[in-house]
């Protein structure tokens, strides 16, 4: 065994490992299943009931989401006659794919990332994340259903109104860390203070944008079931529907990773400099993913507290309060950079 250096092997298959196993597809699948279960359990606890239980009663019904996934897999896929079939079939898949691809630009450790370390990872990941909702609009358009169509229109309105605050909040962190790179950003947080203390306004903006973009309450507007049945996914069934429903959770995962990298200090409290396969590669990643999971759990808890806003209220607050907040966060960053450092 001494002839084969383990770090070398890991370095060789690192990209594959990153995308497929951790924190890639398998982790996403497990985390989505857990977070959906957790969302239902949290809501059930607040609502004084049991929640999913009878699938795997001993572990509190944790396999319920897996059972749902199986059910979707074996359901008959119905494609409406008047739908644009190509778009109808491809759009949910592309939506899911782009949400997942954004992950390759999000490193979860100093020496562990999918591509060679780029200097512009923040910009690339943000750009890919912004593409995803466009496929949501295609989904709504392709089904030839009035409710889906209205859902797509709502998605478009919200997309535009919350894009700018999102970008500005990222920009304000770029200004503070003076880098376009997640790893350097985390390193500078490890040296000084976590981003949430440096710029709480940007963190708040980012949280609101996360809630909005992933359709959590109180911004569950595109899928408002009492108005639009299921919004975009009214006509969908089977695995298409399952993929479509899982996409917001993947986005939520991406956003939470970015949030924990930019604001929660990444792999803090670990400060790694050694190229150890366990300590240097996976442990920081584990810390980041756990932080992201906590952020996700907090966001899904909102379902138990809030009803949903109306479209015009959400758009209005997007163009007023949230935009103002993000502009203020940029100003705060500039002030800090000019005077504190």
């Amino acid at each position, binding site marked *: 065994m001494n002839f084969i250096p383990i770090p070398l092997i890991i370095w060789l298959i690192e990209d594959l490992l990153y995308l497929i196993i951790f924190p890639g597809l398998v982790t996403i699948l497990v985390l989505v299943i857990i977070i959906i279960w957790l969302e239902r359990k949290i809501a059930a606890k*607040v609502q*004084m*009931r*049991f929640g999913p*239980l009878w699938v795997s009663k001993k572990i509190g019904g944790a396999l319920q989401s897996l059972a749902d996934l199986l059910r979707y897999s074996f359901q008959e896929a119905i494609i409406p006659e008047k739908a644009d079939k190509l778009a109808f079939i491809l759009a949910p898949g592309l939506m899911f794919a782009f949400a997942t691809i954004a992950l390759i630009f999000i490193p979860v450790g100093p020496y562990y990332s999918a591509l060679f370390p780029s200097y512009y990872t923040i910009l690339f990941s943000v750009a890919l994340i912004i593409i995803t909702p466009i496929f949501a609009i295609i989904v709504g358009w392709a089904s030839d259903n009035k409710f889906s169509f209205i859902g797509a229109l709502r998605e478009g309105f919200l997309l535009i109104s919350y894009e700018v605050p999102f970008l500005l909040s990222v920009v304000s962190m770029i200004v503070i860390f003076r880098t376009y790179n997640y790893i350097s950003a985390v390193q500078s947080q490890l040296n000084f203070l976590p981003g949430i203390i440096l710029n709480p306004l940007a963190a708040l903006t980012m949280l609101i944008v996360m809630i909005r973009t992933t359709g959590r309450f109180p911004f569950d507007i595109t899928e408002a079931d009492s108005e639009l049945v299921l919004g975009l996914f009214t006509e969908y069934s089977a695995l298409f529907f399952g993929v479509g429903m899982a996409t917001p959770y993947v986005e939520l995962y991406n956003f939470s990773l970015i949030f924990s990298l930019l604001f929660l200090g990444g792999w803090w409290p670990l400060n790694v400099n050694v190229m150890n396969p366990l300590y240097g590669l996976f442990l920081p990643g584990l810390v980041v993913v756990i932080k992201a999971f906590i952020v996700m759990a907090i966001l899904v*808890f909102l379902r*138990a*507290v809030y009803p949903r806003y109306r479209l015009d209220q959400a758009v209005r607050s997007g163009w007023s309060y949230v935009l103002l907040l993000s502009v203020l966060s940029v100003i705060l960053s500039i002030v800090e950079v000019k005077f504190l450092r």
Partner: protein
Amino acid sequence: MNEVRKPRDPVTGHIKALAKGFKYLLEPNRMTLDYPAETMKLPPNYRGFFTVDDKKCIGCSMCEMVCPPEAITMVPRIIGEGGKTLPAPEGEKETKGPKRTKRPVVNWGKCIFCYFCVDVCPVDAFIPTQVHDVAFEKDKDYRPSYEEYLKPPEEPYKNAKKVVSKADLKRGVSYEPAP
């Protein structure tokens, strides 16, 4: 009433709502019953499935007349020894005459459990039970013959834990093991 209407300012409102939700997340407060692992023992006046006392019944048809969904039919019977009745011969509809009588049979598919029949019986011949959660497998099962009707449906989930509900200041309803 205007002091009731006064809106709360958004910041306090959000904080209070989140705090209340978080409080409920942490407190033990479940009020649901883990049916069918636990089943309820219902109060004695609960209106469940019921049967008739063959000896007490006098075959007066009052229950048939009062039944709102017309679920009760009277079947012809022959009075046997000791007050018990025997089935009438095939095809015979005669209910008058010596040793002839009739008995009620309830179609469970129609019954609405209003207990008008139980209350209208001049000799109080109906025997109520608290069984209520029965699923019939076949269409025929809820149209019993008279002999089947004398044994009303049995309670499902016999191994379940029996509980009684109790008013609770914290959870509204709590369940404790039945005595």
